[in-house]
C-alpha cells in the first residue's frame, strides 16, 4: 500500500527538539527542590534552609504536596518561625503542583517587603517525569558525596537538562566530611555533566549533617533558632546567602 511521505518522515528525521515549556515568568524567584515522600533528612534540610532564608529577610514560601503523603516530613502549614511560610498544595501531579506554586509566586501580596522567594519541594520521580508541565527554570539538588548518590543526582540532572537545556541546576553537597570532600564531589559531578551533557551545575555550597540536624528533625525545631551558631546553622546560612545572591543578580 502506498504511503504518504508525511506518514513515514519521522523515521528519517532526528527527533524534534521542541522548545522547553518555560513557565510564564513568576514575579518571585522560584526554586525546585526534589525531595522524596519519605526523605526526612532532605525535607529537614529544605525547611531549615527556608528558616535561614527568613533570617536573611528573604520571606520564603515553601510549597509541598498535601499530606498524608508528606505528613511526617513537614510542619503544619502556615507561617512558621521568622515568617517562613509552608503551603501544602492539594495537587496529585507535578504540572498541577507547578501551576499552584507559580500562582503563589505571582501573587502581588507575597514578598511585598524586601525580596521573597518560593521553594517548590516535589518528589524526584515527579520532577524527573515532568509531564506536560512548565518549568520554573531553576532547581537545587541535595546530594551526599557518596558515589551512588552522585550517580542518582547526575541521572536527575540529565532528565532536567533534556527537558530544558538552559535550566540552572544547583548542587548542594550534604553529609560531607569537610570542605575538600564536598569540593571533590561537586567537581566530579560537574566534570561528568560537562563531558556527557555539555552543561555544568552551579555550586550552592555544602550542608553539615551533624547531631544538631538530627535533634532538630526529632524536635521539629529549626537549627538556626535552637543552635544559631552551630556548624550546621552556619552552613545553612552560607547556602541561603548563595541562593539569594543569585536570585538578586537575576536580570
Amino acid at each position, binding site marked *: 500500500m502506498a504511503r504518504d511521505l508525511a506518514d513515514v518522515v519521522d523515521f528519517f528525521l532526528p527527533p524534534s527538539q521542541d522548545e522547553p515549556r518555560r513557565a510564564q*515568568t513568576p514575579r518571585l*524567584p522560584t526554586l525546585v527542590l526534589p525531595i522524596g515522600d519519605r526523605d526526612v533528612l532532605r525535607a529537614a534540610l529544605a525547611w531549615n534552609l527556608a528558616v535561614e532564608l527568613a533570617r536573611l529577610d528573604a520571606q520564603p514560601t515553601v510549597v509541598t504536596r498535601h499530606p498524608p503523603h508528606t505528613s511526617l516530613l513537614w510542619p503544619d502549614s502556615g507561617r512558621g518561625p521568622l515568617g517562613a511560610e509552608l503551603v501544602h498544595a492539594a495537587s496529585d501531579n507535578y504540572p498541577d503542583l507547578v501551576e499552584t506554586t507559580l500562582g503563589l509566586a505571582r501573587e502581588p501580596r507575597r*514578598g511585598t517587603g524586601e525580596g521573597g522567594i518560593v521553594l517548590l519541594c516535589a518528589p524526584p520521580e515527579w520532577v524527573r517525569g515532568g509531564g506536560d508541565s512548565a518549568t520554573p527554570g531553576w532547581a537545587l539538588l541535595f546530594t551526599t558525596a557518596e558515589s551512588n548518590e552522585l550517580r542518582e543526582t547526575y541521572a536527575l540532572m540529565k532528565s532536567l537538562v533534556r527537558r530544558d537545556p538552559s535550566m540552572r541546576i544547583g548542587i548542594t553537597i550534604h553529609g560531607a*566530611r569537610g570542605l575538600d570532600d564536598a569540593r571533590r564531589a561537586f567537581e566530579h559531578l560537574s566534570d561528568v555533566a560537562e563531558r556527557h551533557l555539555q552543561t555544568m551545575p552551579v555550586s550552592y555550597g555544602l550542608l553539615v549533617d551533624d547531631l544538631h540536624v538530627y535533634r532538630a528533625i526529632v524536635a521539629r*525545631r529549626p537549627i538556626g533558632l535552637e543552635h544559631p551558631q552551630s556548624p550546621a546553622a552556619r552552613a545553612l546560612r552560607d547556602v541561603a546567602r*548563595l541562593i539569594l545572591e543569585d536570585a538578586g543578580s537575576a536580570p
Partner: protein
Amino acid sequence: MTNEWSLGEPHSRAALVSAVARRLPSVVSGFQLIAENWLAESSRIDLLGTADGDVVIACIADRGRELEGLGRALAHTQWVQPRLSDWLKLAPQLDFSPDSTVRSVLVCASMSPETRAAAEALPEGLATLYHARWLENASGADVLLDPITKGDIPASPAAVFSPPTVASVAERRKSGEGFRTGLTDADLDLTRSESAEFAAPPTGN
C-alpha cells in the same frame, strides 16, 4: 503558647539587654562581659566587655533609631580609648592593654540601608551590626543575633523574576567558576589535622 519559637517583642529593655549579654559570647569570639549600663560622656554603654584582647562596646538601639545608635557607639569608643590605662590601674586583671583596640557592636531589631552603608564606610571591624529578633516559646524567651554583612542584603523585589542565566560551559570554565562556599574548616569545627585526614580522594567513583 507552644514549644515552637515565635517572634515577639521584649517586655522590657532590661530583659533585652540581659538576653543580648547572654548571647554575645556565642557571636563575638572570646567576649567576656565586664560591666552593664556604664556611664560614659553623657549616656550609658549598655554592655562593656573584652574579646581576644580588644575592648568591646555593645549598644542596643531602639527600633528605627539604629543610625543614632551607631553614632553613639562610635562616640563611646572615642570616650573609652583614653581611659583604658586608668581602668587597668583599678583592675589590672582585665584582659586588655592601654593600647588595645576599642570596637563597637550595634544591636537593633531593624537595620536601615543608611545604617548599613554608614557601617560599611567605617574602618574594618570598628563597628559590627547585629540584627536582633526576640523569640518566645512556652519555656521562655531568647534573642537571636544575626551579623549583618554586605552579602546579607536581601534579594531585591524585582517586578518580574527570571531564573539566573546559565552561561556557556566554556565561559564558566574560563572564569574558573566551580565549587562555592563561604565556609572554612573552622566553621565546621575541624582542625587542620582533622581536615588533612580526609585529603585522600573518595573511593568508589
